[in-house]
């Protein structure tokens, strides 16, 4: 007899991971703006402050740079801080501590220390919050050696990658899509880990490899179902980790399908799609390509407020269907 499937939302899955990590390890604590009694801007920390107390679910002043530095210092001195940016956009205020300090301290000190720091970044558009609350900046940080950058797309991965990140000795940046917080999915009750650096094939296919991140995994899967009715059998890869990239999974898939589309919400130019395209072009998969590489990314514009424009600024399911169909029918 099968046990009933246990479903949690993406936000609940993150909260469960945070709670289990704090239960398992007294060094773990949370820092962020309004993560205490308020429960976090997206209710991710919820009631954790009542379970673990204000010392372990610490509200910080609105001081992203300083608070990020405090997290770095605490990590250096034996704690395991998990830092929440209220919106990923606000991390721009803290880049000094992330890029110059957290990412480099181990290296600069000749490997004498580690910085076991996790930072969570609620990211992405679709909430009508306009240009300073909607960006997808993950490629910025994925450019920095010393950091690891992950982007879970499912509740299962949100929990498993977060636990893996908290146990990782190095700084791990987790980009969570705000529109995903409410989606539900199967999440085992016990703690588990999803390995950092491993992509997941969400749909096997033979016609094209769609390498997608975060919410674009869901849109790509929807597009794949529509395309399937037209005889196009897309393989959808959920990248899950931007740094380090899972090169073998991407290369093997493209060798099988002979076509590549990269779908991501960050600005299209100089983004993750460029890196995936280049790694395929540099690999043995290049000889297997039967069509030009396709990149679908965010528009070359800040995220607009108007809902029609906001939708137009990032790839939608119908965009993926149309562009992949064009590629497969040589109408590009």
């Amino acid at each position: 007899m099968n046990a009933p499937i246990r479903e949690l939302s993406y936000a609940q899955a993150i909260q469960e991971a945070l709670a289990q990590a704090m239960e398992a390890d007294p060094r773990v604590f949370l820092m962020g703006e309004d993560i205490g009694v308020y429960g976090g801007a997206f209710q991710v920390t919820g009631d954790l402050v009542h379970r673990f107390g204000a010392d372990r679910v610490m509200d910080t002043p609105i001081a992203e740079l300083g608070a990020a530095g405090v997290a770095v210092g605490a990590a250096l001195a034996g704690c395991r801080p998990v830092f929440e940016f209220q919106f990923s956009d606000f991390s721009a205020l803290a880049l000094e501590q992330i890029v110059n300090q957290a990412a480099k301290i181990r290296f600069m000190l000749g490997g004498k220390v580690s910085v076991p720091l996790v930072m969570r970044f609620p990211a992405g558009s679709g909430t009508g919050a306009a240009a300073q609350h909607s960006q997808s900046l993950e490629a910025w940080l994925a450019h920095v050696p010393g950091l690891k950058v992950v982007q879970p797309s499912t509740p299962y991965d949100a929990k498993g990658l977060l636990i893996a990140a908290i146990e990782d000795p190095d700084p791990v940046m987790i980009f969570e899509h705000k529109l995903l917080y409410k989606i539900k999915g199967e999440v085992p009750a016990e703690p588990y880990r999803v390995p950092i650096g491993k992509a997941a094939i969400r749909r096997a296919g033979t016609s094209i490899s769609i390498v997608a991140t975060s919410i674009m995994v869901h849109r790509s899967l929807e597009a794949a179902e529509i395309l399937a009715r037209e005889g196009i059998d897309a393989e959808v890869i959920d990248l899950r980790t931007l740094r380090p990239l899972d090169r073998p999974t991407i290369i093997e898939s493209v060798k099988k399908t002979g076509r590549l589309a990269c779908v991501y919400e960050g600005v299209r130019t100089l983004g993750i799609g460029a890196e995936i395209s280049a790694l395929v072009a540099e690999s043995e998969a290049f000889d297997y390509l039967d069509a030009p590489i396709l990149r679908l990314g965010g528009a070359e514009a800040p995220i607009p407020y108007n809902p029609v424009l906001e939708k137009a600024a990032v790839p939608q399911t119908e965009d993926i269907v149309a562009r992949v169909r064009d590629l497969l029918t040589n109408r590009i």
Partner: protein
Amino acid sequence: MNHPVAALRDAEVSNLRPFYKRFQAAELKQALRRMYLIRRFEEGAEDAYTRGLIHGTMHLSIGQEASAVGACMDLRKSDYITSTHRGHGHCIAKGAEPKLMFAEFFGKEEGYCRGRGGSMHIADVESGNLGANGIVAGGIPIAVGAALAIKKQQRDDVAVCFFGDGASNEGAFHEALNMAAIWTLPVIFVCENNKYGMSVSTERSMAVENVADRAASYRMPGAIVDGNRIEDVSEAVMEATTRARSGKGPTLIECKTYRIRGHSKSDRNRYRTKEEIEAWQAKDPIRHFETELVTRRILDESDVTTIRAEAEQEIADGIEFARNGTDPVATEVTRDVYTIDPMADPTT
């Protein structure tokens, strides 16, 4: 080991200032020795740079030895410091070995950072030094974070945060002091105000006269001391560490001092006068301490000569050690970027 007060009569003992009550003769000698080591280390580094033995740049703290050594005299090994781009003195003051620092300057594997950090990132984590920092004010929030860890771990250690007058104009300074105060953290902010943020004077860059004036905004004590007098610095830090160790929170101490050399190797001293530099040279912190110790009969002239000679020898040996060090191999350029190599298969 003679206590310095042993030579004095009882009446004089009660008049002794806290610095001379707190430290034994051996500790005072050690402090003077470290000040010499800092001075000779930097002169040796400067000389090695001029002779083309080491590359890059460096920021010398010659003239600021009293604030570095004075602030660290009362610290334990388990106390932390964070340092600055002008951090050689802090490193030696907290107990680092000059030969391993020279090895770092020479880019050798034997160096504190295996030659990966150089002058601006020098750190001896073993002695509680969390590192120099190439970013002005970069270490200030980090020190507050280390103090937060101390509090969480229920230790009675402290974090001493060195920074300059220039850093006090950065947002990170203000954010960090505010958090240290609201969370009552055991951190001591030691500002070495050497009058210039590179070329811009404090008069031109600060609306208030003193960095210590800024403490009031964060409801913490703000003390001003003569940064060239080790006993003044040390006493202020002792008071602050006592306060911090007993859970009463942070203190800001401003040490008024002066860097005799330029900002870095590119400095042409266009923003200050020769007279100003000479006036500060007359207030040399090493000469002051030496005179104090001799006047107080804690040392005699021959002790001073011996300490100087030993420091000279240690520096000469350190440079020789560094020159004979091991160069890193080019294939190890990505070593220590991560604790666990992420390119290795994560499933294995």
